[in-house]
């Protein structure tokens, strides 16, 4: 780097009174006007972000109130605060168990799964420059599905089932990557095709295992899991999945600007100074970790990772920095709301995957209608 001087200052200085055609004052005026507009825009952005966060908080606390056993709001707040500051106990032990051991893990799981799926979808969509891509595109979902079903058939304890799901999800994506690299470097299309192939293969394996499963006990368990739901979540599961969700999100946040630039296309991104191969690989790995982690906790929950990034783009524009943050918050809020519905709408629980699909499909039609005016 040392022997090559950076571009001369001459260029910059000359540029300052360049081609605008003697309109120096006019330019300055325009710049100032622009500054004002930008400030107003950033205020609107802040307002939207605040509303989004407040809604998340309200849904979070509200979720503790939903369930068969009634717990009043002040009790919920007191029980949660008592974990941080010592408070005199005015609640019953049953209440504490229900709030902290039953409802809290489930709420946290919904937040983690919703956030992970949405961020994963947003990253995949930017990476493939295709707004119709979902986290399952490279086979992570069905790979994880196969792992979980295998674990259930072998009657492993639940935490091992989830572990196996996570590992198989990664294996599936690794297979897709290997297949596509075997076919050469036309990255995007061969990768997507390899993902479809791998998904189909693991789906067939899942069917085979279902066929072998004990129809009285294991088969219903498998079927429910494949629908996607959070009813089996324990606090242990949440603790185990915190790292595989948080670490990729932090890495993606670090790469947010590069991911944003990748959305103009690989070749242009390279001329803008991005190491495309390396960046793509890191983003791919992170998005896959998220998808596998989410699937291993919640089963196959579809549509969240496809629709939430769209909604985020609709509200905040295409800049990936904002899309990442908005997807995380909106995704977490959305899945938590859906999970609340799933456990309160009927006397018996409806799997959350069914609800997200029921709402997702019509919403997708709405997106298609909008798509004529550009994806946003």
């Amino acid at each position, binding site marked *: 780097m040392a022997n090559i001087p950076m571009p001369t200052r001459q260029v910059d200085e000359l540029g300052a009174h360049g081609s605008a055609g003697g309109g120096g004052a006019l*330019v300055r005026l325009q710049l100032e006007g622009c500054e004002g507009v930008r400030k107003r825009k950033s205020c609107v952005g802040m307002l939207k972000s605040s509303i989004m966060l407040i809604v998340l908080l309200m849904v979070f606390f509200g979720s503790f109130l939903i369930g068969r056993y009634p717990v009043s709001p002040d009790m919920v707040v007191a029980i949660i605060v008592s974990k941080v500051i010592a408070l005199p106990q005015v609640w019953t032990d049953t209440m504490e168990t229900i709030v902290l051991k039953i409802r809290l893990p489930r709420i946290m799981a919904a937040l983690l799964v919703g956030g992970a799926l949405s961020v994963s979808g947003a990253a995949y969509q930017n990476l493939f420059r295709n707004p119709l891509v979902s986290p399952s595109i490279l086979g992570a979902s069905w790979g994880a599905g196969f792992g979980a079903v295998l674990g259930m058939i072998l009657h492993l304890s639940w935490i091992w089932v989830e572990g196996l799901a996570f590992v198989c999800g990664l294996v599936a994506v690794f297979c897709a990557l290997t297949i596509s690299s075997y076919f050469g470097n036309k990255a995007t299309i061969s990768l997507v095709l390899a993902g479809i192939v791998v998904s189909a293969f693991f789906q067939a394996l899942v069917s085979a295992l279902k066929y072998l499963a004990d129809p009285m006990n294991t088969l219903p368990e498998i079927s429910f899991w494949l629908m996607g739901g959070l009813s089996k979540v324990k606090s242990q599961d949440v603790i185990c999945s915190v790292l595989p969700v948080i670490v990729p999100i932090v890495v993606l946040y670090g790469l947010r600007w590069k991911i944003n630039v990748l959305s103009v296309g690989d070749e242009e991104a390279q001329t803008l100074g991005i190491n495309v191969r390396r960046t793509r690989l890191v983003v791919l790995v992170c998005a896959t970790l998220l998808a596998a982690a989410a699937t291993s906790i919640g089963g196959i929950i579809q549509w969240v990772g496809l629709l939430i990034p769209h909604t985020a783009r609709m509200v905040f524009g295409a800049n990936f920095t904002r899309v990442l943050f908005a997807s995380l918050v909106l995704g977490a809020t959305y899945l938590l709301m859906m999970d609340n519905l799933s456990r309160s709408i009927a006397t018996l629980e409806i799997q959350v995957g069914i609800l997200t699909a029921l709402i997702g499909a019509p919403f997708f039609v709405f997106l298609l209608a909008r798509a004529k005016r550009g994806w946003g």
Partner: protein
Amino acid sequence: MLAVDNISFGYSSSSDLLKSLSFAVNKGDVVCLLGPNGAGKTTLLRCLLGILKTRTGSVRVKGRKIGAIPARELAGYMAYVPQATTMVFPHRVLDMVVMGRTPHIGFTAGPSDDDLAIATEALAKLGIVHLADCLFSQISGGERQLALIARALTQRAELLIMDEPTSSLDYGNQVRILQVIDNLAEQGYSIIMTSHFPNHAFLLCNKVLIMKNGTITAFGSPDEVVTDSILSELYTTRVRIFEIEVGKSKTMKVCIPVLV
């Protein structure tokens, strides 16, 4: 500044699209690449940018092979202005332009207020600052081309590589883009551009590179290289060049086709 030494390129090893090309671009040069469709102009640009790896020979920037320069550093030396394309995602024009700051943005950072100011300034220089908050996909072709030039300017690279900057623009917008390129050349940028219009060579350029079937058939100043006979052969159609008077004791050459 840019030295191309004996490069060949082909997607398959049997047929070469570019055959042993050599030329050099000096600081301040404005080089126009002329040639019929399929001559390899865009392929050559992609080799210069390091997007395509040449099979033989080398492209050197300031004495260093581009293969050995990391993308981030290379982007500080040369900027690419692609043909205006459509975007999948609805980026705002300002967000698009500030992407040019990427080589100057820290490894895990996003664009700072300074970067946004530089991008806004570049928009202002090209007279499209009012479009900053519009969506890139919703502005006109000419405005998109200007925005892409603005993006290249924010890179602060000395060499601009433009792929048919006036393609699919109406006459007024073509002239506007040519004016912008001329101003940039005056400011000290070196420019390599492809074109389908020999007149562009007379209007803007101090060097013309003529390509046919992947080889360079002529390289030199417009007066030497852009002649009746060379152009007629290049495009296999009759072309005449006239000298016309523009203003007091100032002449310029124009190239027109002859229909029979």
